[in-house]
């Protein structure tokens, strides 16, 4: 693979101002599956209103790290997390913290579109109903419409809100899942390879969407596509065998990486 041309990378910088305040911070985070250490001590900040891309070879721990940020690893038996992760300065692994509230603030979009076997409407209304965000039916309708609009799906589905979400195309399903995530008004959205099951056109739509959403949310996105990382992110973090090798402005990572491992990976000599 060739180096990404600088004009592609320039795009994001002009369109948004990156605030320098950290939204989430991870400090010496280690994750173990049984006794195997999958994440070996990572320090990383996610800034307010930034898009940060996680790249790295398969199995290096990108998904694992992403999942520590909203405690999705809790659902895996024998998975243990050490170190601290804070959201707005509050330790999210604090036993007194309600994981339900955390996940409402830190939403997640998965690699494979996973709409519930319910209607499109109910898919989006699921979160708001759980958290009691809507006062009455009208309110809920509004939240659903807004979320679908922001996910760029409203025009395609407004006439079939009562049809099953599983009947949509793969790209539409993924945007439905994004709509579902933003319906609970999270502050951070985590995306694990959201486009890996999609064709280039659907991918372009999602990337556009990420760009729009970044004005309101902090977004962390795992991707295997160097171009995608270059197109959508402000900063890029390179993971290697459970360690964070380098995190820098995307432009810098793709033009003059600090570390030779990063360079090897993005020039395609590795992974």
């Amino acid at each position, binding site marked *: 693979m060739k180096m990404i041309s600088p004009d592609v990378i320039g795009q994001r910088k002009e369109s948004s101002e990156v605030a320098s305040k950290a939204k989430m911070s991870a400090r010496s985070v280690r994750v173990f599956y049984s006794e195997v250490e999958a994440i070996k001590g990572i320090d990383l900040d996610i800034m307010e209103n930034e898009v940060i891309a996680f790249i790295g070879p398969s199995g290096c721990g990108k998904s694992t790290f992403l999942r520590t940020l*909203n405690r*999705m690893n809790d*659902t895996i*038996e024998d998975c243990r997390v050490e170190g601290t992760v804070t959201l707005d300065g509050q330790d999210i692994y604090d036993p007194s913290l309600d994981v*339900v*509230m*955390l*996940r*409402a603030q830190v*939403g*997640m979009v*998965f690699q*494979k579109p*996973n*709409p*519930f*076997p*319910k209607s499109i409407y109910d898919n989006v209304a*699921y*979160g708001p109903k*759980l*958290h009691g965000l809507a006062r009455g039916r009208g309110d809920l309708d509004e939240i659903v419409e807004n979320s679908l609009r922001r996910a760029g799906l409203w025009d395609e589905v407004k006439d079939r809100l009562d049809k099953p979400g599983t009947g949509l195309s793969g790209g539409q399903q993924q945007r439905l*899942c994004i709509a*579902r*995530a933003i319906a*609970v008004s999270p502050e951070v959205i985590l995306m694990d390879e959201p486009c890996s099951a999609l064709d280039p056109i659907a991918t372009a739509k999602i990337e556009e969407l990420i760009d729009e959403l970044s004005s309101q949310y902090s977004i962390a996105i795992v991707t295997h596509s160097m171009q995608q990382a270059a197109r959508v992110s402000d900063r890029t973090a390179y993971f290697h065998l459970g360690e964070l090798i380098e995190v820098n402005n995307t432009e810098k990572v793709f033009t003059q990486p600090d570390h030779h491992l990063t360079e090897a990976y993005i020039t395609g000599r590795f992974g």
Partner: protein
Amino acid sequence: MNNLTLIAGLLMLMAVAYQIGLMRSRAVARTDSERMHSRPVYYGWLVALWCGVPALFVFGLWSLLEPAVIRSIVIGALPAELADMPAQQVSVLMNRLGHIASGFGVAGEVAPWEAAAAEQLTRLQAISQLAKIALMASLAMAGVLMARRHIRPSLRARNHVEKVIAALLAICAGVAVLTTVGIVFSMFGEAMHFFSFVSPMEFFFGTTWNPRFSTTGAGGQGEFGLLPLLWGTLMVSIIALLVAVPIGLMTAIYMAEYAPSWLRSVAKPVIEVLAGIPTIVYGVFALMVVGPFFASVGDMLGIQIRATSALTAGFVMGVMIIPFVSSLSDDIITQVPQSLRDGSLGLGATRSETIRQVVLPAALPGIVGAFLLAASRAIGETMIVVLAAGNSPVLHANPLEAVSTVTVTIVNQLTGDTDFASPQSLVAFALGLTLFVITLALNVVALYIVRKYREQYD
């Protein structure tokens, strides 16, 4: 030489034939420049099959026809005054002649004509046996010689052998299917016979069950109304499901969603043992422990609860079918993709919210299928109800009273001293057929639902 040694001999001959085929094909391969179509083993098999199959076919046919032929010859040679005996007496006589011929179990004096007939019987059997052996041996030899002569490179031995194997498998499958069809047909025939005594209207819509055993001879036929029995079956099954469905479903949810894997690996087999306990053990347990317990609880509360009642039988049956519900539901719940759970948890749903709102609705069709399978099991269950339901075929709606079910009645009608041609016995076939149709329908619907569900995530 009896039939067993005959078959053994034939098998031995087949082994030899196999070797002949093998050697012949190798010899041909050496002399012929053309490449053999199949590997030598297939030529061996082909020769062995040609040796065995025709001979076996003759053996089967012979065994089928021999008794009838010999019998007609022996009967034909009997003294003239015995010529027109009724059929039943003929078979009694043939039995007696057989005993005389073998010299075992002869009762009473042997008349001279009987001795003569028995001697003829022995002679005929010996001739028949010799002829059979000769025919089979010559067929086997001819088969080997012919097959051996046909061995040449172009003979597609492998394809022929494969065809025979496929035919063999098809015959085995056919036996199972034919048995089922045969049972259904004979049940159907006998049920029709029953309906020649009692009209279907009376049977299916009658509300009184009082078959009045024919031996008491007290005039009339008795009444054969199915409804009290069907209602009893329904009541017991519903009680069983009321016990098994909630407990089984909760168990399944716990096992699939909450239990740590070590507990699951221990508890699942233990629960499934419940299904392996012989039903008679459950019956005894119901009769001696659960029934009296319910009765004493009733006493305490001041309600009349009979020890043997729909409640007792239903409750114990419910315990028995818990593993059916839990095991099937567990499998179905585990099949719901993890990604759906992750999606829900990722939105901030708790585990129980996820289960109630995402997992169970997704698994619902399959779970309903599991319930129906459990229901069909309950409807067909016999031993527990025989012992613990009280056997009282009266139409009433009180689950605390004794009832009778279709299965119990079948047992009652066929045990004891009964004449198998009377409607009192034949009704068992009509009852059995009804039961069969009901459980079949439930099974078909359940399997359809379960399969439909499986497709959803494949």
